[in-house]
């Protein structure tokens, strides 16, 4: 296990300034050509954002219940499509999901319940190796094996 990583106090793993607009619903966002922040509900199709990824600064994805894994696909689709802005997981986000969420491209978190930062640090540095490519750029084991 690597050294525990530092957890930002606000659970935002980005250096840039946060968007200063609150996130609006997907439908509202699609109606507002100047909006830069959007909120995705569990059942929303994130591919509706693909034509305008360049102007988006913040995408919040709701995880209504921690067992609902749709947000992992949403995150990954956005990153695969070239989204570079802030991708925030909000809602029923538990410390044991942080690693998967990071791997799916999430770089900030707004959990309903406070997260123990010491536990989070351990959770995020638990695995030195991963089996598959994902949105976090971690080199998968097969690439290490074959150079």
């Amino acid at each position, binding site marked *: 296990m690597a050294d525990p990583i530092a957890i930002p106090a606000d659970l935002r793993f980005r250096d840039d300034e946060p968007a200063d607009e609150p996130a609006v619903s997907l439908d509202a966002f699609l109606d507002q050509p100047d909006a830069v922040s959007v909120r995705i509900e569990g059942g929303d199709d994130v591919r509706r954002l693909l034509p305008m990824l360049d102007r988006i600064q913040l995408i919040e994805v709701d995880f209504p219940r921690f*067992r609902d*894994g749709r947000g992992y*696909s*949403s995150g990954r689709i956005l990153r695969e499509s070239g989204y570079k802005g802030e991708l925030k997981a909000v809602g029923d986000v538990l410390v044991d999901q942080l690693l*998967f969420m990071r791997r799916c491209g999430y770089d900030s978190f707004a959990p309903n319940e406070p997260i123990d930062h010491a536990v989070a640090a351990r959770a995020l540095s638990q*695995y030195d190796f991963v*089996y*598959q490519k994902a949105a976090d750029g971690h080199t998968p*084991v097969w690439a290490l094996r074959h150079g």
Partner: protein
Amino acid sequence: MYRYDTYDQAIVDARVEEFRDQVARRISGEMSEDQFKPLRLKNGLYLQLHAYMLRVAVPYGTLNPEQMRMLAHIARTYDRGYGHFTTRQNMQFHWIKLEQTPEILAKLATVQMHAIQTSGESIRNISADQFAGAAADEICDPRPWAEYIRQFTTFHPEFSYLPRKFKFGLTASATDRAAIKLHDVGLQLVYGPDGDIGFRVYVGGGMGRTPFIASLIRDFLPAASLCSYIEAILRVWNRNGRRDNIHKQRIKILVHDLGAEEFTRQVEAEWQAIRPNDDDIPLVEYERIAAHFVPPPFEEGLDDRIDRTDPAFSAWVERSAHTHKQPGYAIVTVSLKPIGGIPGDLTAEQMEVLADLAERYSFSDLRSTHEQNVVLPHVRKSDLYAVWAALREADLATANLSLISELIVCPGLDYCSLANARSLPLAQKIAERFADEERQRDIGELKIKISGCINACGHHHVGHIGVLGVDKKGTENYQLLLGGSGAEDASLAKIVGPGFSEDGIVEAVERTVEKYRAVRNDGERFLDTYRRVGVEPFKEAIYG
């Protein structure tokens, strides 16, 4: 078989440490049961009727003697002296303490075993043909592909919180010994139009409350695209599968609701979107894995005959020895269904006997099957007698494979908190009723599969005779189904009529068997007679 490299070992070791921490947080109260449950399920740990139950993965049903001996050690040290092989080739221990689970997992990790994703809404154990590497009719050994998929689907970050569990089954033969059409994704290795290896892809099979046989969604998928295609299937389901009703969340429901054509269209579209991302694990990695599965050093020119003068030995050979691709060798299936015993259970001592036999007579190769038996895949025919003698001493030589007394049974209400009825006492009664060896041989191939509840872990939907235990106003009641098959001729068993008491269903099975004998053609097995004459003659015989 596959051996971990430092990366595989590091991943399993990290998982052990992670779970140790999670268990500590549960025991200290930092985590509620509601929060802990999905985490412990991801490590195969259930809370059952009497204790915690740990389901240890046996990837694609392959074990070496060292691993079998570790299972014996776990049974002896942490459980009550025995383990149970499941219908997904895994091993379950029914008397586990939560506080000892981190230690158990740490020990399993020392022999390259784990309980990762054997439960919960995860991608589960990849099951495969138990005769892989030994069968004459396979186009290649499917297990390297199973290992390739296992690694790809372990801790996959996008697919760790799926709507429901997800099961892969693999075969490389036209004869389906792995029941792939009853899996969420069934993969058959085939040659493509240009002679290259690839997969025939089936999606949407499964048992449970609403059983389905998988639909063929792709005739040929090139091997190099397997990972991205799997991602497409999972992503379509992860995004669109129902999450409102636990009984409607498997991918089979989505395939059924959309129709196979529309489902396929969505998968193909998603696949086109995923392909540019280069997620496919390159074939050089497949080749690295496959190098672990080269055939053992078979001897050439061995005697292909078996001396069957001893009638008891001969009866056992008849049931338990199958054709091996290498002349002079046989595949041995060990029945774990002694008459009056508990199907699929093995004591620690029996595990050690099998480990020793595998080491001595089967190139240290052991398999578990989805019908709860164990296979010694590479036994010289000249060694069969010695193997049989050793099995007999360990009460592992029952000559009933695929006969009526060799039942496939879930643990049922004797162990399982999900069950509605007990399944094991019924299995014992049926086995005892039909114990007579000559009668069994006369009846011939007849697979009875019993489930203690609608979750169908006993695979009753694909029993030639299936039994489903239900709760009828607080009393155990049993439904009789006929005509199922998990093989390449897959079919779902149909219920014949009102249910029975435990003794009642034993009688119903008796009448079913007698009716079969009365109307069968020469050499026709039960399933074929049923398919020929239909359910009516049986209904009449059973209900009068």
